[in-house]
């Protein structure tokens, strides 16, 4: 009989707004 697939691990993602914030602060930090 077929093997049961292993459950996939949920990858946590920031929201679009959080990504925007992270991106902005990275740009500010870079010289």
């Amino acid at each position: 009989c077929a093997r049961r697939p292993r459950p996939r691990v949920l990858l946590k993602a920031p929201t679009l707004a959080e990504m925007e914030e992270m991106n902005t602060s990275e740009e500010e930090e870079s010289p």
Partner: protein
Amino acid sequence: RQVAVQRKEKDFQGMLEYHKEDEALLIRNLVTELKPQALAGTVPCLPAYILYMCIRHADYINDDLKVHSLLTSTINGIKKVLKKHNDDFEMTSFWLSNTCRLLHCLKQYSGDEGFMTQNSAKQNEHCLKNFDLTEYRQVLSDLSIQIYQQLIKIAEGMLQPMIVSAMLENESIQGLSGMKPTGYRKRSSSMADGDNAYCLEAIIRQMNSFHTTMCDQGLDPEIVLQVFKQLFYMITAVTLNNLLLRKDVCSWSTGMQLRYNISQLEEWLRGRNLHQSGAVQTMEPLIQAAQLLQLKKKTPEDAEAICSLCTSLSTQQIVKILNLYTPLNEFEERVTVGFIRTIQAQLQERSDAQQLLLDYKHMFPVLFPFNPSSLTMDSIHIPACLNLEFLNEV
């Protein structure tokens, strides 16, 4: 004696491998610096498929950091390119198509049975093995909504300068110009006689161009329908608002021209197979306003006919048009105060909106129905023009 040994090519499993340090180059060549024209003649939404194949390999080697990093860089790259080209319809439509396709791929190959009903056996082999990307799907869905809104804003900005001129001022019906209300002839808006005068053909040409671009780029047909419903609503709102504010266009002849223009737009929708979009329904108040301009406005029977016909116009709008209505010549009478009172009395029980003008900036909520692809990943060819030689087929 030499024996020719034929090396069997390893089967391509539809995955693309890259070194972590090449991620920035991948995003640059495939997202931020890519010109949609470079992909003419290739599979629509090729960048989305390539990105999925890279995600799939990172999933295959169970590298969660690589998946996180690639998805974050992709999303930031798309946002960057949209910001840079925030008035470019083609570019925005291109990234809407690709973002939606990537979202569809993450569903189709998620391993969730609900999204696999149309998959072939081969496609089922291409599902993600280790990670559940549900949260990233939400981010891509939110991003798709943002891109859709940008696309509508660009299209509206291109159409808006044409609307009043093309819908209300331009006369394409022969002989109508002589039937303009007395005293208003040649007194329409300053745009009409200047360089910015547009005819309906200009609107239709522009919409043909929007439609061809979106279809060529493989944008989901359901989204294309929603774009046109939104654009037709905006055309209706801008035209009706102008009609409600300008006495010189509230005449029988403008009603006639307007009805003709609307029928041309309806015919265009049918010709492009867009009549199921709901666009015609959004034009209903304008269709009724054009009819109201043409109907007789004298007897109680006329009042009854107007009330039963103009169901998509508010009482305030009907009364305003009747008040503004300008007779063609000395033989046609003005609408009497008594007639308007009869109308008001008949419509008293209607509980309709109090506002006179339509909100031309109103946006219908957009939906992105799941649209799986029949394409299998191992059949996708990466053209040399993409400069992605550093990707290894696995």
